[in-house]
């Protein structure tokens, strides 16, 4: 097991989930994922323009396939360019689509429930919804790729608040993407084109910025915060994950450590001996470990960090050692 140790933090590479597929077991360009409190994962495949296999794959965190739902199209419950998936406190699943400019709601079995959202630039309309996050009160925050703003709605789509406009100053945004809410209901936005993460309070007031310290962010796509307040950011373009303390200081960089095949990948290789043999001839498997366009990141209360890779069709998982203390040197 590979471990990344820095100061008072240790991140152990834990496992990899997934493999490429246009349906059934596997993902195709998994742009986002959501994990329910009972350990059910919903992985959103955006697919490509030619591989029309947009869908949500449902699996356990131990990589047991459960089901899949949705598909490509414009009908109710279908997607064209899905971007984000979240679960509300009643277990309902919300998916944003930046082409159709709508939020689609499913029950936890994947049955279409409802949809809302009207395309447009006006307040309350949707202009390229890219990221979704719920706060503790059940309000839904939507970041907009084309609107360069954040909008706050009730879960039924009633508009509450809008902030942000295109720019580079504090509080301004350019093509924001991932968004998350911490335990104090502060909001973190991956300000994609500005290469930073901005933190706002629940009223949209600017609080601080992440990314100015450390190696920098390169088109960050997603952000997550763990229970200790550490902030995780997928630096999508340069294929890294950067980790910060709550004060913005940089902790470390993850580059990907997938030295263990996912269960589904191993199954594939067992069923396809030619592929298995071809791998055996490769001198160095290390290129396979690295992230390739890490696009979405989530944390769970058990200290795990889940990172989906758009171009590798898998999820790498790290386990943060909780309450870790540096051992004395002369052991």
């Amino acid at each position, binding site marked *: 097991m590979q471990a990344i140790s820095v100061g008072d933090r240790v991140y152990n590479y834990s496992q990899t989930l997934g493999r*490429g597929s246009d349906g059934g077991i596997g993902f195709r360009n998994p742009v986002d994922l959501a994990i329910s409190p009972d350990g059910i994962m919903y992985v959103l495949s955006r697919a490509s323009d030619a591989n029309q296999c947009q869908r949500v794959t449902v699996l356990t965190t131990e990589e047991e396939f459960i089901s899949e739902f949705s598909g490509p199209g414009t009908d109710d419950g279908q997607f064209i360019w899905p971007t984000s998936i979240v679960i509300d406190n009643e277990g309902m699943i919300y998916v944003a689509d930046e082409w159709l400019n709508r939020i689609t709601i499913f029950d936890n079995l994947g049955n279409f429930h409802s949809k809302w959202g009207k395309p447009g630039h006006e307040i309350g309309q949707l202009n390229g919804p890219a990221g979704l996050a719920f706060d503790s009160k059940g309000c839904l925050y939507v970041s907009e790729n084309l609107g360069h703003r954040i909008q706050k709605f009730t879960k039924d789509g009633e508009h509450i608040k809008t902030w942000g406009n295109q720019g580079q100053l504090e509080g301004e945004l350019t093509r924001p993407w991932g968004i998350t809410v911490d335990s104090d209901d502060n909001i973190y936005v991956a300000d994609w084109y500005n290469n930073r993460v901005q933190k706002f309070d629940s009223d949209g007031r600017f609080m601080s910025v992440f990314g100015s310290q450390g190696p920098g962010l390169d088109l960050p796509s997603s952000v997550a915060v763990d229970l200790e307040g550490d902030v995780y950011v997928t630096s999508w373009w340069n294929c890294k994950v950067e980790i910060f303390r709550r004060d913005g200081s940089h902790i470390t960089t993850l580059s990907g450590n997938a030295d263990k095949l996912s269960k589904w990948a191993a199954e594939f290789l067992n069923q396809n001996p030619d592929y298995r043999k071809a791998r055996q001839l490769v001198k160095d498997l290390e290129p396979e470990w690295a992230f390739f366009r890490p696009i979405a990141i989530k944390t769970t209360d058990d200290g795990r960090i889940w990172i989906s890779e758009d171009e590798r069709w898998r999820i790498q998982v790290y386990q943060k050692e909780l309450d870790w203390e540096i051992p004395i040197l002369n052991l």
Partner: protein
Amino acid sequence: MTGEKALALMAHLMRRAGFGASKREIEARALKGYETTVEELVDPSSHGIPGLHEGIFYRHYTGIANPGNPLNMRGNFLYRMINSPRPLEEKTTLFWHQVFATGYSKVDNGNELLHQIDMFRKFGMGSYRELLVKLAKNPAMIFWLDNNENHKHAPNENWGRELLELFTMGQGHYSEEDVKECSRAFTGWTIGRKLPKNPYGRFLWEFDYRSEDHDEGEKQFLGHTGNFNGEDIIDIIVEQPATSRFLARHLYNFFVEDEVQVPSWLDIPPMNPEAIDAIANTLVENQFDVRSTLRFIFNSDFFKDEKVWFKRVKSPAELIVGTLKVVEDYHFPKPGLSEIAEECGFQGQALLDPPSVEGWHTGKEWIDSGALLRRINFVADRLSDKDLPGVRLMVEELCKKGDMSSKELLDECLDRMGILRLERETFDELIQHMNKSGTENLDKTTQGEVARADLITDVMRLIAATREYQFA
């Protein structure tokens, strides 16, 4: 040169050094001047012109950077042709792709083929000699022409033969013995063991030089004797007069005027031997620097001469990209790019998958009855779609002009479609057709904006079927 002539010449330049341009762009470039525009085209970096913002491209088109599906791979190339702020860079990339034709049908690795295209993009206007070395080390090319099967004790001549026949000198300038000796020099130039495409997608292949598999024996090649390795062979090839003339003819064929197909070059002399000589000399004088040679071509009298205007049949890629630029479609990512890529294939040019290493037969061979219909229909469909920004703008501008005669309307449409100039006969035929359809006086009896807008798009569709629109 001023006014209308300067605009027409600029339009010619942009059709050849790019994929055509809107009237607005042509006017803006004409204001800067012809020579300045040539400089910006041949050396965009020095003029601070950025490349395409790949982040925005890949953010919206997931899966297109590392394509498993060939349509994504083709869409990747086409989108860059439509949107790159460096049109000549992209046009030169297409040029090299047509010369060093490498195909998905065998390589089966979109990622690696795009990597080769990117190599043409980055180095295609630099040194031809350096580009040949990079090509010889390019994994897609190595696999395409079996150099990974070219071993010290079992040579494979595929790469060696095509290097001489199709990529550098052309038939008639080397012997079978030269092919054998050339191939020996490239033994050991292979690809490293590679991760398979499943379960996690493609990984880039890597060039691997295996000295133990390289033939270290003495070789005799084109009158030279020595223990040559691959780069030595390329050095000898580049010194040959046949090479500069071969490349010159390729450049003339692609940028100036349609020539006969490459296999006939041995028997049929060039359309303009003086121009070929001048281009070949420029190549030699500039150590095969492609940028300097393109600068020379675009500033030459033979390029500016109206006799060569509209003397190249647009390839399907040029026709499709040029049309999408005119109607301003796909100027920002939107779904459906793979359908555009598919259309290019239907018209006879499945990008990154040429029919053979010889590439596509060009010129009039782009057009047969089926392809012509597809070409016209594709353009006509776009030009009649008033939801497309470029069409909407043209219609709005022309509607604002009020009543126009058929001739005035045709002139205006030709201008807005890239400052096209029709032959007199074609022009008169279109006017005749417009008048016959009752369009001459339609403006005076129009029932409103819709009828007027329909009339304008009808005229543009007529233009789409002309030789001048189908040619560059």
